[in-house]
């Protein structure tokens, strides 16, 4: 078992997110944003800019013509969408799959992107900003990446424990490591200075009963459950985690709306996965 102090120390060894991404995340809670200046900063990070443009030009956004600059992408897609794309690209790049690791990075990102998409689709029904919901969904299991990449041997034991007990991930982590990915993920979000509501969504996505009815954490709780239930990650041993009755009631959607939500999530997921999980 690794003491929590040791885990936090390893978090602080992680590379910082590019400064522009931290700035973009901070801008989520600001009213007056200098989009022109931010576009200039994004463009300076060439690999980030290139991946963002590839995503912006994908059929997911169905743009009539190709965009060639970040400034142009902002003009066509809006600043909110670009902020989401840049953050998504940057975070996925921060944890490259390491050679020889037994951890299933692709499966991890498929679930992360699946939860992001479900959160974005659910957001308007829960009066949340769809772009913020997307980011929170994408990051909700970040703690798993910290454990799997910083403590690979221990995390292999977590996988074995989970298989032997057919348990959920968090339960196996608590049994083997003494702490779970929600706690570790929220520590990383604090280190990376993510906005408070995203930190809370990462920390509390398994605590559905305790969440405010129309909140980002509750949206992510529902989105995480939905991503498992729609089998988006296609992991053979996947299982739907406990779904809070309180959260389900808070969403208050009728049957036709849920069926439409399922279809929207599946369609959006296929397209995004091609770009983000490659």
């Amino acid at each position: 078992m690794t003491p929590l102090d040791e885990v936090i120390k390893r978090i602080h060894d992680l590379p910082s997110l590019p400064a522009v991404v931290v700035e973009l995340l901070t801008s989520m809670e600001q009213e007056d944003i200098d989009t022109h200046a931010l576009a200039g900063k994004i463009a300076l990070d060439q690999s980030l800019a290139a991946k963002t443009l590839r995503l912006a030009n994908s059929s997911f956004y169905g743009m009539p013509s190709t965009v060639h600059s970040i400034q142009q992408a902002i003009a066509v897609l809006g600043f909110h969408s670009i902020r989401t794309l840049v953050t998504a690209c940057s975070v996925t790049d921060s944890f490259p799959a390491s050679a020889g690791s037994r951890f299933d990075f692709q499966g991890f990102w498929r679930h992360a992107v699946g939860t992001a998409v479900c959160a974005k689709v659910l957001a308007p029904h829960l009066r949340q900003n769809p772009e913020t919901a997307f980011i929170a969904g994408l990051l909700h299991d970040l703690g798993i990446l910290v454990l799997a990449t910083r403590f690979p041997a221990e995390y292999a034991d977590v996988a074995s424990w989970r298989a032997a007990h057919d348990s959920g991930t968090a339960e196996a982590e608590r049994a083997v490591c003494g702490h779970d990915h929600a706690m570790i993920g929220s520590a990383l979000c604090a280190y990376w200075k993510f906005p408070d509501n995203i930190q809370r969504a990462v920390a509390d996505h398994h605590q559905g009963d305790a969440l405010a009815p129309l909140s980002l954490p509750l949206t992510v709780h529902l989105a995480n459950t939905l991503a498992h239930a729609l089998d988006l990650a296609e992991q053979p041993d996947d299982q739907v985690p406990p779904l809070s009755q309180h959260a389900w009631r808070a969403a208050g959607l009728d049957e036709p709306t849920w069926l439409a939500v399922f279809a929207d999530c599946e369609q959006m997921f296929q397209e995004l996965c091609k770009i983000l999980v490659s």
Partner: protein
Amino acid sequence: MSGPAASAGATTIALDQACAGMVLAEALLDAHGGLLLPQGSTLSEASLASLRRRAIATCSVLGAVADPAQLARARAARLARLDRLFRHNGAAEAGATLWRLLITYREQQP
């Protein structure tokens, strides 16, 4: 209506076999010859429901229609997968409701 010609791989099927996403190879007319859906229309759940209300029995769609036995096997596999995904958390109230909705959703898929 710029749909493909009716002769290009059209198959006449019972309306029960038709599902959302199929494309009409020929226009659908009501008993009086009035146009219900033009050639080239893509069927949706809403248009299928409307055709059922009008007691339309068959329609002609583009492309080969999959073998019904194969479709039934695929459908059974989708439902079995749901059983597996909900093996631990399908009994509680909200989990059971979500499971039931997903069964409805998966049953509607071709």
